[in-house]
């Protein structure tokens, strides 16, 4: 992680003194032993919670696939059965497209967590005010 010492910016003595002065005034508090223990415990909880969520993810995905297939089967069952040779090709393709889309949507990569998906209006605001 550490590079050669020469990989430091060249500062004039005045600039160096200013930077040292800022660094001395702007220092984060050192956590106490109790705060470190609390931090570790909270982190452990967060990791465990996420791990549980990741393990449940395949079960949720499986349930969603079953639900999508159920919708597909129900959609087919409610259609008036045409006489042989009169199968509506447009309906068949539409129904299979719906089921395929549902399954594809499950397989497609989506944001890993809800908070990672920023709302569209926020993204627009961000582009205007923050430059991305």
């Amino acid at each position, binding site marked *: 992680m550490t590079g050669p010492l020469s990989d430091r910016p060249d500062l004039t003595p005045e600039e160096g003194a*200013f930077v040292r002065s800022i660094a001395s005034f*702007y220092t984060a508090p050192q956590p106490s032993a109790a705060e470190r223990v609390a931090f570790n415990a909270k982190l452990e909880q967060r990791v465990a919670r996420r791990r549980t969520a990741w393990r449940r993810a395949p079960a949720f995905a499986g349930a969603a696939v079953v639900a999508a297939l159920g919708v597909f089967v129900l959609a087919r069952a409610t259609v008036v059965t045409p006489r042989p040779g009169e199968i509506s090709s447009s309906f068949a393709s539409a129904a299979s497209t719906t089921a395929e889309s549902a399954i594809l949507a499950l397989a497609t990569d989506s944001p890993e967590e809800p908070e990672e998906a920023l709302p569209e209006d926020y993204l627009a605001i961000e582009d205007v005010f923050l430059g991305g």
Partner: protein
Amino acid sequence: VDEARRGHCFDSFVREHRDRAIGLAWKLLDGDQAAAEDVAQEAFVRAYRGLGRFRQDASLSTWFYRILVNEAHRHRRWRWVRQRFAGELPEDSPDPRAQPLGDPYLRRRIARALDALPRGQREAFVLVHLEGFTVRDAAQITGRAVGTIKSHLHRALAALRERLADLDPLKEVNES
């Protein structure tokens, strides 16, 4: 066994980098201690989850600090939106945890001056001048070119010296 080994390695990594991670987040988040701890935790969780995807084209710590800096940026964006649309947050909410030593007024002024810098300049200044990373490390962490980091450092320093001229020790000497 793999999970246990991963957990053990991760614990060591957290122990080694925890204080610096919180400190770096604190500086990037204008001295907000609660937010700094939250961001550091989130960065550790994401690192843990992403360990399998870690490519060894950078050191593990560089990769982790990259996650942390991005997480701090994400937090800043959400804070900005909240402040903009839900009203200003209280400036100094009481925090029962230890307060840093030194003058709180001065600290706030520095935080505001850093906050006013563009993202690239702020991150470069904090990483190199306040956290002691090398220019090359800062370039890897922020995903920018070394030349860009140097340029950001130059501009950040000029802007801060202008905004915080009274903190410049040599200027004070010259004026007195």
